[in-house]
């Protein structure tokens, strides 16, 4: 449209009414003239009038089109459409309610999953200019380590900080856990070790007081503490007096200098910090073994803000210059020459850091993508349901549509009107859905959290989430509206005006588009049911797996000495005493202790050199280790298959002994009796320890995760272990619920030594926590699979009911002519069977094609597991037949007389 026309429209807005009247008058004059001419040609007045109108064509349409030249008609019709749409929806409150709730659930589920994806993976940190941030990583070129490794040592960090010419600001940080309690049960808070530039580079401001600066982070510092806003509110009630007071962390007292701004939770998405301390303060906490100068203690993350104007190429070039200098200055002294050579080959790289870092990304990326697809499909099924209802409604509205078209409404105009109604519905659904999503988010966080690893995520309704919800709403409004809208406006005017019931239905009332919709629903829901069955079966397999130990009724107590003043040689007798006392408590079956507990996420391995011929060497000889007290296997109910358990005679000075698992026996002593043979452990690269005699073989059990293939494992007596900086875990088998005995256990430990820090959980919890990802997928896919099934069955039920209602007359006639109820039933069920067959066949093919992506997430069964596929198809078919049978029975109840009288 030219600008002249646009301008004319603007003018038209002013004298619009006059214009409309003039046009009216003009057309009237035209018709009169034509009539006059017709009369002059000899027609009767009546004939002359009709001939004139016929010649003119549709008066209303001509007026509308002409008027469109002058008005922003679309705006007016939009308002009209919305008003009319609201009226129509209010006329059918039942339908409107069901549709809005269905849509709200669908949009809510989609928005909830999307907003989790957004929060974990996409959203920028709430800091100054987040896009300038990059995370520094290091390419190690080591086999098995793909992509940049994000963790650095303090010496490396210091080199990067002092030598770099890439960043306008650079900072390092590490995670920590501090104990607030002075005695008894530990009360842990999340800590951060931050370098002096941390807050300043991020652009975080203090809420009160000041934040840590470079002046605070100098070697030999006394340490200061900065609180997070949330922690300040919870523990100090937001009192200003907290600034200047002190806080005790792991029995070290530090002054509080300030509180970070609200909304800043750290750089690690999924967690939040409570207290931040300068990196230099690690020296106070670590004692003699300070990590500040350790060149093989990997614990720091590094991020920087790129200097403005620096191109990616320049940055790469500068990193290439920086890398060799940095690594040359920090070679780990205790590494072998080969490893040191590899170390010098390492190079620094950067990755975008605007979204911070998160361990959740790696863990939940694929599950979240799958869930997004699942809720998307559920939503399609829900949309199909609404589309079916709309189609059915369209049939009842065909008369209205026919009348409106006869009066000159164009088809596009009617389609637009019907689509407006749909978008209204979906908008209402979206608003409700966003509320539902907020609630769904809280639920999701609970599902991905585990007892010992709480996930903290702050969901905000940012433009991405709102845009997503809006886009979904618009799309679905059009999706479920377009087919009914086009179909219902394709009416035969004469048939509709005659009032025939079946204007909409060709081919003996077969409801064609509706059937395809239902078949598609069946197909899609079969795919989801298959997926859900796969995840459920794989989860059940993991849960019921023989893990080699009995997880129930075992309490785990982690003990850590609060003060470092006790000499290491005093620790063992202290722990022995605690173990003895625990064993005598009422309700305790057995007590023991170990350095590591099963499936804890910790791992300790060394290379093992066995004295048997052809025993594996090098990396192939890597063996998992654990140090345990006598009674460990009894407590876990892991059977000793050969030889003996450790006993009180296996002291530090006695000959070194070990118990190995079945896998280790097979690997290092194939065909031999391992009991009585010897092996040596590689303490440092190339340095072998004293010979150790194998005294027993135990059944295989899971060490690291439930999904692992059991690896060779050796257990040594906890009395003979090398010095270990961390306190042991006590494992206590009880007769009743572990929580019932907690206070008794605590009192008993305090009576031995009241300065120990204690932390409790159960072995069952620990095993459960390792299955977070599997549980999430199993729970949600089962829920959505069930929902999909339900929706598809409602769709089927609705379609069959509708078909039965439409063919009532036909059935009546058939019955009147002597058809038996069974034959009528078969007539209907044949239809159901066809829909079902098409749907199941299509669903089968889609499943076969798509389940491959699940392969890696499954345990103990293939993605194309035949039993699961067939079982899901059978379940679906059974439910579908029930859903079809109920309305089909209604067809046999048709009273021929009533049906015949209808027309």
């Amino acid at each position, binding site marked *: 449209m030219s600008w002249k*026309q646009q301008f004319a429209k603007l003018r038209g807005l002013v004298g619009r009414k006059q214009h409309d009247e003039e046009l009216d008058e*003009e*057309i009237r004059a035209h018709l009169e*003239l*034509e009539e006059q001419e017709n009369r002059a040609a000899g027609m009767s007045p009546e004939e002359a009038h009709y001939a004139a109108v016929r010649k003119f064509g549709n*008066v209303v349409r*001509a007026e509308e089109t002409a008027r469109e*030249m002058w008005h922003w008609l679309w705006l007016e019709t939009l308002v009209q459409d919305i008003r009319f749409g609201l009226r129509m929806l209010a006329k059918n409150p039942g339908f409107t309610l069901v549709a809005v709730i269905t849509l709200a659930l669908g949009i809510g589920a989609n928005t909830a999953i999307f907003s989790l994806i957004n929060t974990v993976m996409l959203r920028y940190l709430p800091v100054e200019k987040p896009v300038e941030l990059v995370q520094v990583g290091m390419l190690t070129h080591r086999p098995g380590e793909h992509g940049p490794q994000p963790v650095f040592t303090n010496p490396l960090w210091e080199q990067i900080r002092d030598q770099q010419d890439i960043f306008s600001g650079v900072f390092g940080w590490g995670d920590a856990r501090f104990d607030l309690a002075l005695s008894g049960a530990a009360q842990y808070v999340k800590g951060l070790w931050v370098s002096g530039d941390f807050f300043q580079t991020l652009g975080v401001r203090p809420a009160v007081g000041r934040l840590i600066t470079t002046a605070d982070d100098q070697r030999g510092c006394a340490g200061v503490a900065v609180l997070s806003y949330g922690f300040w509110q919870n523990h100090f009630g937001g009192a200003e007096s907290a600034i200047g007071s002190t806080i005790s962390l792991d029995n070290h007292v530090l002054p509080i200098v300030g509180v970070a701004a609200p909304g800043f939770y750290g750089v690690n998405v999924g967690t939040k910090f409570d207290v931040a301390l300068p990196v230099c303060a690690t020296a106070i906490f670590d004692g003699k073994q300070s990590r500040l100068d350790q060149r093989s203690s990997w614990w720091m993350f590094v991020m920087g803000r790129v200097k403005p104007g620096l191109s990616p190429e320049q940055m790469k070039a500068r990193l290439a210059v920086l890398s060799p200098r940095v690594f040359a200055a920090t070679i780990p002294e205790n590494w072998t020459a080969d490893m040191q050579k590899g170390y010098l080959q390492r190079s620094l790289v950067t990755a975008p850091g605007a979204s911070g870092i998160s361990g959740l990304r790696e863990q939940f990326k694929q599950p979240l993508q799958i869930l997004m697809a699942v809720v998307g499909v559920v939503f399609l099924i829900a949309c199909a349901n609404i589309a079916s209802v709309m189609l059915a409604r369209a049939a009842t509205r065909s008369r209205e549509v026919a009348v409106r078209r006869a009066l000159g409404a164009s088809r596009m105009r009617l389609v637009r009107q019907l689509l407006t109604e749909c978008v209204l519905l979906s908008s209402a659904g979206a608003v409700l859905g966003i509320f539902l999503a907020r609630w769904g988010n809280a639920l999701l966080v609970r599902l991905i959290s585990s007892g010992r690893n709480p996930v903290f995520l702050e969901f905000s309704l940012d433009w991405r989430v709102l845009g997503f919800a809006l886009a979904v709403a618009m799309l679905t409004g059009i999706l479920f509206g377009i087919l009914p809208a086009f179909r219902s406006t394709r009416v035969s005017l004469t048939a509709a005006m005659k009032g025939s019931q079946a204007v909409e239905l060709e081919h003996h009332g077969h409801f064609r588009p509706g059937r395809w919709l239902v078949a598609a629903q069946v197909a899609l829901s079969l795919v989801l049911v298959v997926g859900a069955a796969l995840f459920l079966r794989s989860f059940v397999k993991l849960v019921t797996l023989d893990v080699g130990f009995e997880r129930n009724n075992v309490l785990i107590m982690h003990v850590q000495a609060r003060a470092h003043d006790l000499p290491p040689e005093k620790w063992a007798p202290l722990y022995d005493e605690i173990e003895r006392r625990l064993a005598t408590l009422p309700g305790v079956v057995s007590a023991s202790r170990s350095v590591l507990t099963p499936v804890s996420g910790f791992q300790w391995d060394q290379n093992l050199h066995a004295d048997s011929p052809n025993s594996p060497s090098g990396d192939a000889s890597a063996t998992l280790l654990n140090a345990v007290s006598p009674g460990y296997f009894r407590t876990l109910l892991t059977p000793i298959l050969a030889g003996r358990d450790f006993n009180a005679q296996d002291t530090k000075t006695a000959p070194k002994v070990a118990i190995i698992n079945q896998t280790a026996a097979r690997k290092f002593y194939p065909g031999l009796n391992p009991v009585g043979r010897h092996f040596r452990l590689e303490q440092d690269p190339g340095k072998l320890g004293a010979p150790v005699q194998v005294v027993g073989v135990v059944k295989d059990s899971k060490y690291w995760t439930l999904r692992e293939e059991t690896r060779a494992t050796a257990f040594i007596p906890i009395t003979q272990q090398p010095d270990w900086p961390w306190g042991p875990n006590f494992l206590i088998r009880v007769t009743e619920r572990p929580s019932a005995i907690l206070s008794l256990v605590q009192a008993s430990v305090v009576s031995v030594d009241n300065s120990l820090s204690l932390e409790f959980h159960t072995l069952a919890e620990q095993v459960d926590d390792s299955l977070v990802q599997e549980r999430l997928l199993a729970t949600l896919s089962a829920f959505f699979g069930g929902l999909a099934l339900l929706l598809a069955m409602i769709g089927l039920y609705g379609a069959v009911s509708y078909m039965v209602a439409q063919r009532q007359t036909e059935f009546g006639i058939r019955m009147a002519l002597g058809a038996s109820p069974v034959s009528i039933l078969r007539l209907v069920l044949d239809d159901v069977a066809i829909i079902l067959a098409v749907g199941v066949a299509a669903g089968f093919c889609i499943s076969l094609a798509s389940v491959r992506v699940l392969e890696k997430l499954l345990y103990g069964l293939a993605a194309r597991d035949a039993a699961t596929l067939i079982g899901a198809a059978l379940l679906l078919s059974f439910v579908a037949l029930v859903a079809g049978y109920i309305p089909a029975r209604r067809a046999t109840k048709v009273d021929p007389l009533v049906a015949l009288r209808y027309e």
Partner: protein
Amino acid sequence: MPRKDPERERIELLQGTLDMLILRTLLWGPAHGHGIATAIERTSSDVLKIEHGSLYPALQRLQQEGWITAEWKTSPNNRRARYYRLTAAGRRRLTSETSRWRRLTEAIARILRPVESPEES
């Protein structure tokens, strides 16, 4: 069911040609809507068929483009009618449109001419 209809023998107007025909008709002098419609039909010896209703949107469009103007006048038989008149811009437009049209019809005529020599293909 479509019946054999004498009206079918008449040619429906091509999109866009109506504008040109209106401008051409107004070249003879101001006219009202009905007059324009009858004039087009008469001069084309009733071959061209216009739905009279479609005339009015076209008239609005031409007005907006500034090619014609309109005013209310009393017709010879004493009836108020809206008379349309060609503007200078409209005249220029008609000239350019006409020559464009001529080129187009010549080109089409060339293509539709009976084939003189068998084509080799």
